[in-house]
């Protein structure tokens, strides 16, 4: 019988990194040790534990990683809680890739980039950031603003400090919500920090984080002079199929799983604000 998109494949979790008190990063390969499938930054995959449920996650690793796939997952519901209880060697099911992904080979090419993330919102952006780092010559100056509740809540702090911060042409701006004795960096919310930093308006901005962060960061960037067609985000909605059929993530004449999850803000302006 021909291939059915809704029937998944087996994936094996070979490594689990504890990033924060409620975020772990899962490394997934196929039973023969390969990367499950090819994707572009911003695309997603359906992971499931049979008997627990299936849910859509953005792929955190960059497509330039050809050996495995990584998912940074925050513990917040049924499937994610279960995933936080597993150990390496655990089988999962995987299917995908789903969604449009970021226009890394078109609109982003040659642009100075500004990435703004809050909390677990870094998960989908990490894929693009590392893609841009890999093909460094294709992109201009890169600024990354990343904030979370506390220093312990910054996801994969190691890579940020040991790799991103040390690279030429990349400026990393970290912030945490409240003062901490061991933190000598910026303290304050992401939207205010972005305003303080005052970025050049020729940049292409990509936002991902809690809705409240997106709302105020978007407003701040617009005040600075950014146009809506320069600002991208990636949306989240409940999904069951991932292929535009189950109806759950319908937003106007779009399906987030298929036509998104990446949208430009001028595109979102023409859609109902039910997201």
């Amino acid at each position: 019988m021909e291939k059915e998109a809704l029937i998944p494949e087996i994936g094996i979790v070979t490594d689990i990194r504890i990033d924060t008190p409620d975020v772990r990063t899962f490394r997934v390969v196929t039973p023969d040790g390969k990367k499950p499938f090819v994707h572009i930054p911003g695309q997603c995959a359906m992971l499931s534990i049979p008997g627990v449920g299936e849910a859509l996650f953005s792929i955190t690793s960059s497509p330039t990683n050809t050996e495995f796939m990584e998912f940074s997952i925050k513990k917040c519901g049924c499937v994610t809680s279960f995933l936080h209880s597993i150990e390496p060697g655990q089988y999962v099911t995987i299917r995908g890739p789903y969604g449009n992904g970021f226009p890394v080979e078109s609109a982003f090419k040659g642009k100075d980039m500004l990435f703004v993330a809050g909390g677990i919102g870094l998960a989908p952006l990490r894929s693009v950031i590392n893609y841009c780092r890999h093909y460094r010559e294709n992109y201009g100056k890169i600024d990354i603003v990343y904030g979370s509740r506390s220093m312990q809540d910054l996801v994969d702090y190691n890579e940020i400090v040991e790799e991103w911060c040390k690279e030429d042409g990349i400026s990393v701006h970290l912030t945490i919500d409240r003062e901490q004795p061991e933190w000598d960096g910026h303290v304050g919310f992401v939207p205010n920090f972005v305003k303080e930093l005052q970025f050049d308006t020729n940049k292409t901005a990509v936002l991902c984080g809690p809705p409240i962060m997106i709302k105020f960061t978007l407003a701040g960037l617009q005040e600075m002079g950014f146009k809506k067609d320069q600002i991208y985000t990636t949306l989240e909605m409940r999904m069951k199929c991932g292929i535009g059929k189950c109806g759950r993530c319908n937003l106007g004449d779009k399906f987030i799983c298929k036509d998104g999850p990446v949208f430009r803000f001028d595109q979102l302006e023409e859609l109902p604000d039910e997201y």
Partner: protein
Amino acid sequence: MKSISLSNLPELLSAIAAKEALYLPVDTKEGAEYKAYAEGDSLSLACNTNRSAKDFFFPQVEDMAAFKVEGKKIEIIDVRKETEDFVIFGARACDVKSFEVLDRVFLADPVDTFYKNRREHSTVVALACSAPEETCFCSSFGIDAAEPQGDVSAWIAEGRMFFKPNTQKGETLLSALSALLEESDGAAVEKAKEETRTIMGQLPLQNLPTEHFKPEKLMEHFNDPKWKELSQACIGCGTCTFVCPTCQCFDIRDFDTGNGIQRYRCWDSCMYSDFTQMAADQPRHTQLERFRQRFMHKLVYYPANNEGLFGCVGCGRCLAKCPISMNIAKVMKALGGDK
């Protein structure tokens, strides 16, 4: 055109059932329902069935895959089976049109193999309506109840049933039954069509306004203040979505059988609050938003993606079944500018 005397129809049904699985509407105490043919069943002449015909291609519940879980290991079992050939005998024009609406969802890339398999194995004999009801409004969407599509079109006139094949599958079915069928001219059928159209023309919901539901009016309709009043009495029971021939939203769930995990899909409804509920929040907080989603999808979102084809076929089931008497006809009138 082929025909058979209505008194010989039982023989015809019996002959089809001898060849392949046959489903047809029959009268029950609660009204007409589709069922698998059993010897002696007679075709219901009711205007339409309580449940739509979508079950044949998109059943209310169906298994998608099975899993064996052992410790950390999982095995995936493909439980799909090739469907047997079957005939749906007596589907009305609206339900036949609904298959086209569903096709554009399930047969779009990537194709839904469960649905496609059933579609490929089916032959649809569509029966023209003789007695359309007050709740019927297929003509508002350009559907002619007197000229149903399908693999075979059929009409009842002057004590006979007439058949015209429209597809290769239809030809095959009729030629297998040729010993029972007589060659006829279409004069009686033409008369029956005119009668049906005359009745349709007198029904109250024949010309609902559709011209307003253009893609460019998406935000205007979405933001229409009338949604508040329209949705006020909706109790979110989801009956409309379950009887609707075109509602295709589904859920995918797992069930522990005690001997492995069965993954199945089942109908779901955008009228339910947990349809879009996520761990942290949800985008549609009130019944207004859920109600609006259902009608916007049928009248604006779906047509915008399907060359203007509406996601409603005017079968009238939701009009007959809604416990608060709210329905798409009222929504169309309100949004279409009918004061």
